[in-house]
């Protein structure tokens, strides 16, 4: 059975807003997703009834909060096929990747070792590695090719015996491309390299099983999957978490503290210095329950159908050029495009007047724009509450754009 997006819209209070007198059509889900009432209510309930610091305090309330926090961890890790002790709570995918950079790569790798990233990455999977270069770690990138896929040939060429870590996005936030993560992971493992997958654009949109995929590390953000901002996860295999160095020092991450030296708590606490985002974890756990009820395979099917429809409609528009792969099987619901003669920013401004929110610019992935040879793109990205009427609104608003900019053409 397919998703009933029209009914699902009712779960999201923000979608009832109007902008400039028009129905709100939210198509910037790759940036962040809207929150269903159950998540909003859960957050509020936490602060009304359960707020307490965790892992300390012998009173009942503190125990309840700790229990909620750890149950959230178990629930969220199970959602991606991991064990509770393999999930470190972080602010989001960016912090997760930075944690791997500092606590694993910088701490464990040797001068001259290489980290192999790709040209498809969000800045958050490029810049943390660049920051390691002054420490003698090398950085290389797998090339983009074709319609915006990673070149398997180039990957096999660039991976060497010095490649200790391969890091790539599961799904592109610009091109929509879904990478064959297990295939890449196998090549990396055959080479003796560890694998980090940036799941920010995949966990929200498709069934993900980190174990089946073969990821050693997997990063994701809660706010892109109906959860609150400021909470996300780093999945890492237990043996890796064991050998990794702490990320930040402070309370919560220690076992014993002396003035000369301290010992660390067991993972994942070892990586969670300071008071954690307990409310965020509870909210994200609620979001995970919501997604589980819908079934991720149905979410994926829904977005596949929506993307196929949007691609077909966009490509039939005069002057519209769509970027990224065409086959809906190999792409997610992120569609970058341009309208001839209209800068993406101007496009976004005109669409906003029609109540439609899309993103314009570089999407934090400047190398992808460079590869496409454009200074910016417009991007529409879908989620489970989007339906055909949202795409129809987009297409009809593109008519307005042509009316304003095309008059002299």
């Amino acid at each position, binding site marked *: 059975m397919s998703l009933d997006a029209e009914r699902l819209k009712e779960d999201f209070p923000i979608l009832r807003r109007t902008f400039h007198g028009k129905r709100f059509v939210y198509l910037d889900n790759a940036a962040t997703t809207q929150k269903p009432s159950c998540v909003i209510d859960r957050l509020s309930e936490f602060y009304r009834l359960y707020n307490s610091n965790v892992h300390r305090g012998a009173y009942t309330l503190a125990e309840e909060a700790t229990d909620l926090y750890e149950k959230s961890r178990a629930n969220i890790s199970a959602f991606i096929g991991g064990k509770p002790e393999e999930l470190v709570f972080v602010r989001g995918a960016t912090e997760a990747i930075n944690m791997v950079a500092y606590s694993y790569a910088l701490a464990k790798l040797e001068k001259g070792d290489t980290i192999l990233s790709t040209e498809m990455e969000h800045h958050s999977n490029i810049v943390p590695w660049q920051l390691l270069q002054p420490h003698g770690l090398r950085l290389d990138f797998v090339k983009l090719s074709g319609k915006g896929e990673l070149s398997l040939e180039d990957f096999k060429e660039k991976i060497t015996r010095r490649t200790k870590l391969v890091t790539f996005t599961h799904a592109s936030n610009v091109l929509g491309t879904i990478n064959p993560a297990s295939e890449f992971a196998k090549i990396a493992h055959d080479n003796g390299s560890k694998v980090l997958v940036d799941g920010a654009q995949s966990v929200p949109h498709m069934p993900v099983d980190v174990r089946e995929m073969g990821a050693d590390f997997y990063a994701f953000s809660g706010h892109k999957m109906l959860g609150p901002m400021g909470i996300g996860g780093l999945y890492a295999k237990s043996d890796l978490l064991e050998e990794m160095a702490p990320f930040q020092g402070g309370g919560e991450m220690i076992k014993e503290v002396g003035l000369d030296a301290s010992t660390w708590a067991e993972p994942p606490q070892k990586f969670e210095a300071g008071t954690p985002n307990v409310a965020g974890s509870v909210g994200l756990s609620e979001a995970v329950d919501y997604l589980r009820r819908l079934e991720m395979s149905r979410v994926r099917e829904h977005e596949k159908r929506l993307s196929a429809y949007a691609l077909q409609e966009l490509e039939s528009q005069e002057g519209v050029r769509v970027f990224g792969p065409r086959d809906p099987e190999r792409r997610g619901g992120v569609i970058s495009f341009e309208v001839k003669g209209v*800068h993406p*920013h*101007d496009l976004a*401004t005109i669409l906003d*007047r029609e109540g439609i929110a899309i993103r314009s610019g570089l999407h934090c992935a400047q190398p992808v*724009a460079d590869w496409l040879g454009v200074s910016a793109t417009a991007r529409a990205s879908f989620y489970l509450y989007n339906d055909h009427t949202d795409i129809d609104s987009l297409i009809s608003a593109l008519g*307005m754009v042509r009316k*304003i*900019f095309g008059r*002299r053409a």
Partner: protein
Amino acid sequence: MSDIFQETILHHYEHPSNKGMIENPDVKISDTNTLCGDKVTMYARLNGRVLEEVKFDGAGCAISMASASLLTEKAKGMSIRDVIELGQRDVLEMLGLESLTPMRIKCAMLGVRTLQKGLIEYESKRPV
């Protein structure tokens, strides 16, 4: 539709004034608006402390390009000091707009901020 895409802006976007480069300019400076990918290069030829010729090159949204185009017309014949003193109000007035959102103000100010930076650098290198 808001008047942000009114006649003046669209006209200068589609038919910019003084677009291109100046050979051997006194001032040549480029800058980008990284958030959106607007790029602009400003050129100026000076006669003493007066801008004798101003041109721009670049690519970007209608606001940034129209604003740079209008600026080349406005700045011609102005003194370095007067150009450096141009602010948001002046740019909005030049564009014929009452206001812009904070995101779009950056687009509108790109040309003028870049030219001002170039003029300040030029002044600091000038023998007194």
